[in-house]
């Protein structure tokens, strides 16, 4: 049995692990982590160019947009308008229309503002963007986002950068069951088993940044995450054994001497 590939807005991906490009010691380390993770998509931020320091290294010189799908995000945007403005600049800069939308509520929780997020999604779809949406695990809003035409639903496992894993597996499961577009857990993964758990719930992929960038050895953790996502996906497709209250021997009872 072979798994069908991940398809987002018509693009086919063999990797189900998307990684961020923030918080790494260097872009060089970032590039090695991306390679170890087997990632095909990397999220990137849009910021003002540095006019004072010309020699500052550029992301594109380490992670070649020819080899990685750049997924511009709107991290740091707290209104639909800021997010849309940011993504229009991103589209101009990179020429891509596949984007990651996040409209945040406050600096302390970075929890998505779902009303603004839905509004921004509608406007961006209208404007021709293919929108992957960072969202809460509210299954009702997940449905609205899909109705609004987003190409991927990306509910948080737990707060951005918290590493607390999937807090509410029930909601993630409900979203997976009802969605026709890919569901990708975004934010909250802290270690490999967290990523496996997310995939075992039936998610189509996982997006993470801090879990790799802030690991003791980011390159090795990137590889761990690659395997964890495959493990969780295959376990979901294989179908796990039933849990039992008591023991059940694995060796035959017959033929004992």
């Amino acid at each position, binding site marked *: 049995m072979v798994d069908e590939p991940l398809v987002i807005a018509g693009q086919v991906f063999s990797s189900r692990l998307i990684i*961020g*490009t*923030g*918080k*790494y010691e260097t*872009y060089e380390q*970032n590039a090695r982590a991306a390679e170890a993770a087997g990632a095909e998509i990397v*999220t*990137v*931020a*849009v*910021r*003002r*160019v540095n*006019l004072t320091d*010309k020699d500052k290294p*550029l*992301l*594109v010189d380490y992670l070649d947009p020819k080899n990685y799908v*750049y997924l*511009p*995000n709107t*991290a740091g945007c707290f209104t639909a308008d800021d997010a849309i*403005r940011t993504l*229009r*600049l*991103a589209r*101009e*800069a*990179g020429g891509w229309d596949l984007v990651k939308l996040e409209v945040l509520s406050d600096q302390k929780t970075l929890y998505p503002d779902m009303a603004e997020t839905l509004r921004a999604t509608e406007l961006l779809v209208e404007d021709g963007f293919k929108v992957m949406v960072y969202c809460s695990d509210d299954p009702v809003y997940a449905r609205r986002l899909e109705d609004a035409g987003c190409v991927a639903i990306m509910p948080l496992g737990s707060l*951005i*950068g918290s590493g607390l894993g999937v807090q509410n597996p029930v909601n993630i499961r409900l979203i997976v069951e009802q969605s026709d577009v890919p569901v990708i857990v975004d934010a909250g993964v802290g270690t490999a088993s967290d990523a496996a758990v997310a995939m075992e719930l039936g998610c189509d992929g996982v997006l993470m*940044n*801090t879990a790799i960038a802030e690991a003791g050895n980011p390159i090795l953790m990137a590889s761990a995450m690659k395997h964890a996502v495959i493990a969780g996906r295959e376990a979901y497709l294989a179908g796990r054994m039933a849990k039992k209250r008591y023991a059940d021997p694995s060796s035959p009872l017959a033929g004992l001497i």
Partner: protein
Amino acid sequence: MKITINGEPHEIEQGLSIFDLAATLELAPDKIAIERNRSIVPRSTFAETRLCDGDHIEIVCFVGGG
């Protein structure tokens, strides 16, 4: 004349185009996007777009982010 780039005031000579500005700032046009007074300037029009006194210019590029 005076324009604002990324929030900072800059003094530039008359008649410069966006393309000239990028050149002056040593920025590779294909790695950036530019907003002029809140509206995007398509890269294809960098050369013909002349800067005016008081313009607000935003020049952005991709950086690492989650």
